[in-house]
C-alpha cells in the first residue's frame, strides 16, 4: 500500500469492461470482474480482465468465486505471467458491498486495485478511477476500510495505438461501419494528420508574433528542438538518397511481377501436360 503508486491500464481492458457492461443481465445495475496484469516495483499494469457473474441486492451480495478461479486458470494457461491485480466495477460509487468484494480480492493479491468505470456518463464521458484500500480506525478495535484514489494512466503497445486509431470512427454519425483502408489510403490519412498538426503549430507561432497569444517559453523550446531535428543535408546528397531508395522499390516491384508471371506460366505448362499411364 505504498503511496505514489501508479496504475497503468491497457485500452483492451476498458473495452472488455464496457462490453461486459453492455451484455449484463436485465436486472443487474452494474458488473463486476477481475483484473489481471503484472506488478512492478512502483506500478501496476493491467493488461486483461474478465467478468464474473454476481447478484446484488440491498442487503447482500453473492459472488461466484468458483467461476472466478476457473476463469483465472484458463487465462493463466495462455499467459502465465498475468496475475490477479484487482477488480473492477462499473457504476458510480463505492458501496458497502465493494468492501466485501475487496476483502475477497485482498486474499488473492497483495494490495488489489479497484477500478471504477463510470458507465452512467455522469460527466458526459466515460471516466475511470482507481482506488487502493487502506485500513482506518484505531488498532485493536473494529477497523474499517477506506479507498484512497490512485492515478490511472492509459498505456499502449505500439500496435495497440495503431489499432485504436484505426477503429475510431472519424465521422460523426453513429453506427457507421469503418472499413480497413489500403496501405496507400493509410499514408494519405497520416499525411493529412501531419498537415493539420503543422497548421496548428504555424498558427500558434503567427499568433504569438502578432501578439495575440501569450509567449510560452516551454513551447518555444519544443519548437526549437523540432526545427533542429530536420537533418541538414546537401541538395545532391538528398536527391541521391531518394533516387536510390526509389530505384530499390521499383526493382522490388518489378521482381515481384516477374515472379508472379513466372509462377502463372509454370502452372499453365504443368497443367496442360499429359501423362500416359496406359
Amino acid at each position, binding site marked *: 500500500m505504498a503511496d505514489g503508486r501508479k496504475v497503468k491500464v491497457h485500452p483492451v481492458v476498458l473495452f*472488455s469492461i*464496457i462490453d461486459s457492461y453492455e451484455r449484463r443481465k436485465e436486472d443487474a445495475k452494474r458488473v463486476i470482474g477481475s483484473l489481471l496484469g503484472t506488478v512492478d516495483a512502483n506500478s501496476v499494469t493491467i493488461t486483461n480482465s474478465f467478468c464474473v457473474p454476481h447478484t446484488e441486492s440491498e442487503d447482500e451480495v453473492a459472488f461466484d468465486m468458483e467461476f472466478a478461479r476457473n476463469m483465472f486458470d484458463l487465462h493463466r494457461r495462455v499467459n502465465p505471467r498475468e496475475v490477479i491485480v484487482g477488480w473492477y466495477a462499473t457504476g458510480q460509487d463505492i458501496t458497502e458491498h465493494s468492501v466485501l468484494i475487496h476483502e475477497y480480492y485482498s486474499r488473492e493479491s497483495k494490495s488489489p486495485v479497484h477500478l471504477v468505470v463510470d458507465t452512467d456518463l455522469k460527466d458526459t464521458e466515460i471516466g475511470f478511477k482507481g482506488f487502493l484500500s487502506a485500513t482506518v480506525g484505531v488498532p485493536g478495535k473494529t477497523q474499517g476500510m477506506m479507498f484512497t484514489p490512485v492515478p490511472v494512466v492509459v498505456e499502449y503497445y505500439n500496435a495497440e495505438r495503431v489499432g485504436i486509431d484505426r477503429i475510431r470512427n472519424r465521422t460523426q454519425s453513429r*453506427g457507421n461501419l469503418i472499413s*480497413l483502408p489500403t496501405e*496507400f489510403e493509410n499514408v494519405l490519412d497520416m499525411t493529412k494528420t501531419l498537415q493539420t498538426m503543422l497548421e496548428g503549430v504555424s498558427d500558434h507561432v503567427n499568433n504569438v508574433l502578432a501578439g495575440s497569444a501569450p509567449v510560452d517559453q516551454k513551447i518555444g523550446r519544443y519548437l526549437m528542438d523540432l526545427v533542429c531535428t530536420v537533418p541538414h543535408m546537401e541538395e545532391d546528397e538528398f536527391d541521391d538518397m531518394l533516387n536510390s531508395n526509389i530505384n530499390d522499390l521499383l526493382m522490388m516491384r518489378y521482381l515481384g*511481377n516477374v515472379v508472379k508471371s513466372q509462377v502463372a506460366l509454370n502452372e499453365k505448362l504443368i497443367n496442360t501436360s499429359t501423362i500416359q*499411364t496406359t
Partner: protein
Amino acid sequence: MSSTEPVVKQVQIGGLVVLKLIKHCEEDSGGPELVQGVLLGLVVGETLEITNCFPFPRTTENSDFDEVQYNEYQMDMMRSLRHVNIDHLHVGWYQSSNHGNFVNRAFLDSQFLYQSSIEESVVLIYDPLKTAQGCLSLKAYRLTPKMMSMYDSKHFTLETIKAEGLSFNDMYEEVPINIKNSPLSNMLLLKLKKENPVPEKVEYLNLSHSSSLERQLRLMMSSVDELTQESGKFVQYQRSAAKQHQSKLLYQQKRTVENAARAQRGEPPLPEEDFNKILRPIQQPARIDALLAAGQVSAYCDKVSSFSTQSLGRIFMAQAMDNKD
C-alpha cells in the same frame, strides 16, 4: 450442392476483437511461433459478425498439449463465457503471420475442418510486424468451394486439379472487413483520443524500409525454392512415367512376337501376365504442395508490391517537401 454465390459477403468485427487480437499477438510473440485463437460471434444474413475471441495457449516442447486438452480448454472457456452472456458460437479462428507466410498445409487443414462443420467460418490473418509499422493489417479468408471439394476428395493429382479448374489464385478468397463499435465504445475512444491526441511511439511516416524489404525478399526466395523443388519432382515423375510407358509397349510387343512364334511352332501361347506386377506403376506426387507453394509465392509478391506502393508514396512526399525549399 455448393452454391456459386458466396455464403459470406462481409465480415463485421467489433473493436474489442481487434484489440484483443493485437494484445494476444503482442504478448505472446516470444518466438517465431504462431499464435492462434478462436473467434466467436453470429451470422446475420450475409454478414458474419465477430463479437469476441479468446486465445489458445501456445504449444511448446515442454507442455504436451494434445487434441484432448485443446478441446477441454475450448469447452471450459465457452461454457464460462456463456455464463456472462457472451456469444458462444464458433465462427472461425485467427492466426498471426509474418509478412503473409500463412499459406501452408496446416492452414488448409484447419480451415477445411472449420468450414466443413460451420459453413460460414472465416480465418482472420493478422500481421503484427506490419501493424507495428503503422497500418493495421487484418484480413479475412475463406476457402473457395472448388478448393473445398478438391480437399474433400483427398486426391491431389493433376487430373483432379484440371477437372476442378483450380489454379493457385483460386485456393482462398478474401472477404471484406468492416469494423463496428457500440456507442459506449465510441465514447471511450473519443475520451482516449482526448487524453492522448498524438501517438508518441508509432512511426506512421517512417521512411526506412530496407530491413522489412530484406525480410520479405528472403521469405519470397525460400518459397520460390520450394516451388522449384515441387516442379522438379513433378518433371522427374513425368520422365519416369514416360520411360515406364515405353518399356511397357516394348514388353507387349515382345509378347505378341513371342506368341506368334509359338503359335507357328504349335506351342501354347504364354499366359497373359499382368504388366503391373513386373513393374509397379509410379505414384504421381501430390500436387497440393506445389499449389500451396505457388499460392504462397503470389501472396508474397502481392505484399511486396503493396509495401513498395506505400513506401514510394512516403518517399515522394519527402521529395516534395524538399523541393519546396
